[in-house]
């Protein structure tokens, strides 16, 4: 089935996020070949120009590299991939912190809240 | 050639059933004729019916084209085609003509058989010219007539559909088509009665000296009847040829520029 996308974010970014997640989870390994633009377009039901933009963006971020006549590959530069992981963690933490701040919570509240959350989880 | 062939076969596939119905009607006519002949014990009935069927073939091509064009007219999507309008029409004419030829040949055989069993039939064939010439002329006359009418059908159909998408004219397209027909008929009659036309007609007349069918075509109608000492006018032939080409191209012009989907 054609994928659903959020309205608030460009589709090319959403696809880039998805690929990044796959890389971090290890579903895509360093040196692995990404699907061709057309394959990716068909798979996700998305305009090929959009996929092209996703790949350009990932290339700009140095997460993938395009080899002439061969296709697009996940970079083998482990340092870049490590950075990617950190960056995505940071993104999630940032939005978490921002939401909590909007509720008027302090840093201490957040830390203790998190601790309580994990303890609660373990008990269940 | 590939284009024409493709159109031609499309046409035959599309009208296969129509052709079958035509043949069925022909057979039905023969059976009814034979039945009546037996019942009244009057062999001339059968002969008369077969001749009627034969002459009725003058309407074969127009009827065929109307059927075929009306199938296309449901959506007009046949116009989504990069080839010339003349080719689109010619393929229809050609396919219709082939079916006409088959049906006409069958009708002709039956009519000959019917005539040969009719009372006093000898008189027909003993007349000048002999059966071969007579049959050729009859066939030629009806065939020319049906082509002539067929091309006019293309024209009126195109005219009718040209008016379909024009505001203000849309609701009165029937009156317009009929009005055009009346006007053209009147002009035709007027011209054919001019002394000059009569003189023209008499250029290159061949006296056939045969008891034959006369092919008399008005601008919009053909009539056929037996006349003595038929003549063929070469000039007349040329005039009608010119008319038919003009009408055909008028139809193509309308199809290319005025008919919309």
């Amino acid at each position, binding site marked *: *089935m*054609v*994928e659903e*996308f959020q*309205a*608030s*974010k*460009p*589709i*090319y970014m959403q696809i880039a996020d998805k690929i990044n997640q796959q890389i971090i989870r290890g579903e895509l390994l360093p040196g692995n070949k990404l699907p061709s633009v*057309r394959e990716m*377009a*068909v798979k*996700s*039901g*998305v*305009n*090929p*120009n*959009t996929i092209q*933009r996703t790949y350009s963006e990932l290339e700009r971020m140095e997460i993938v590299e395009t080899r002439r006549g061969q296709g697009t590959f996940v970079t083998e530069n482990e340092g870049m991939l490590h950075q990617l992981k950190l960056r995505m963690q940071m993104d999630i933490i940032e939005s978490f912190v921002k939401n909590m701040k909007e509720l008027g919570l302090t840093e201490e509240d957040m830390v203790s809240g998190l601790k309580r959350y994990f303890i609660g989880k373990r008990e269940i | 050639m*590939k*284009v024409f*062939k*493709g*159109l031609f*076969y*499309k046409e035959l*596939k*599309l009208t*296969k*059933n129509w052709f079958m119905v035509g043949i069925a009607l022909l057979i039905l006519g023969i059976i009814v004729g034979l039945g009546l002949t037996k019942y009244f014990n009057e062999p001339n009935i059968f002969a008369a019916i077969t001749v009627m069927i034969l002459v009725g073939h003058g309407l074969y091509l127009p009827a065929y084209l109307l059927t075929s064009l009306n*199938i296309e007219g*449901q*959506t*007009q*999507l046949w*116009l*989504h*085609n*990069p*080839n*010339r*309008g003349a080719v689109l029409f010619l393929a229809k004419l050609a396919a219709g003509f082939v079916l006409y030829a088959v049906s006409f040949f069958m009708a002709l055989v039956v009519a000959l058989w019917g005539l040969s069993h009719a009372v006093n039939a000898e008189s027909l064939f003993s007349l000048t010219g002999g059966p071969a010439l007579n049959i050729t002329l009859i066939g030629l006359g009806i065939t020319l007539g049906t082509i002539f009418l067929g091309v006019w059908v293309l024209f009126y159909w195109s005219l009718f559909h040209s008016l379909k*998408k024009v*505001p*203000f004219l*849309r609701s009165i397209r029937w009156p317009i088509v009929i009005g055009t027909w009346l006007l053209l008929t009147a002009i035709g009659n007027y011209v054919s009665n001019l002394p000059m036309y009569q003189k023209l007609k008499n250029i290159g007349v061949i006296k056939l000296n045969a008891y034959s069918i006369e092919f008399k075509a008005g601008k919009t109608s053909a009539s056929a009847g037996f006349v003595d000492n038929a003549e063929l006018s070469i000039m007349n032939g040329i005039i009608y040829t010119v008319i038919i080409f003009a009408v055909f191209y008028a139809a193509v012009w309308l199809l*290319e*520029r005025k008919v*919309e*989907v």
Partner: protein
Amino acid sequence: MIEFKNISKKYGRDSGLDDVSFALDKGKIYGLIGPNGSGKSTTLKMIAGLVRPTKGTVLVRGKAVDRRIAKDVAYLSELDMFYQPFTVKDMIDFYASQFEDFRIDRVNELLAFMKLDPDKKLKQLSKGNRGRLKLVLALARETSVLLLDEPFSGLDPMVRDSIVKGLLSYIDFENQTVVIATHEIDEIEPLLDEVLAIKDGKVIDRQNVEELRETKGLSIIQWMKMTFKE
């Protein structure tokens, strides 16, 4: 690739199109959206040379359009196919004979992709399969312009999905201009580069799908609701 210059089309008192001007580029997929009777179909037919403007000029590849632009334009009508006695193969043979750019090798692939039986008669096909066949016929050609009029209308989600995938697999997205007229935008939003909104014979707005998300955080459906409410 496609240019409308001050196009008007009158149908009696109704106006088909009212002084419409726009240009569409090569290698892009456009959505033409608007309520029924807004002028979407008329616009497509005009690009295909099947309807002539009352006023103005339509250009395709710089040429003024007439019926024979069918050479460069593949047009998928919203109307059902009506050559009742034809089989799928008959239809394909006919198309192959009429269009020089019709690629027979591609057709077999497309038929397999759409799971169509070449020996089935058109009248035996379900509506969905006739919709698929129409797309097969359009996609088997190598044209600069591909026009699709309501390709999803009345079809179930399975068929819609196969049509979207078929499109994405077979269009030449670097060179072909694709225009899809539809009132069901949600299916195909991720497919489109740009969207033109038509209402009462006028193009009332035009948006780049990704830009709209980036700058306003809106999907096309949300934007449409705002555009057509006014």
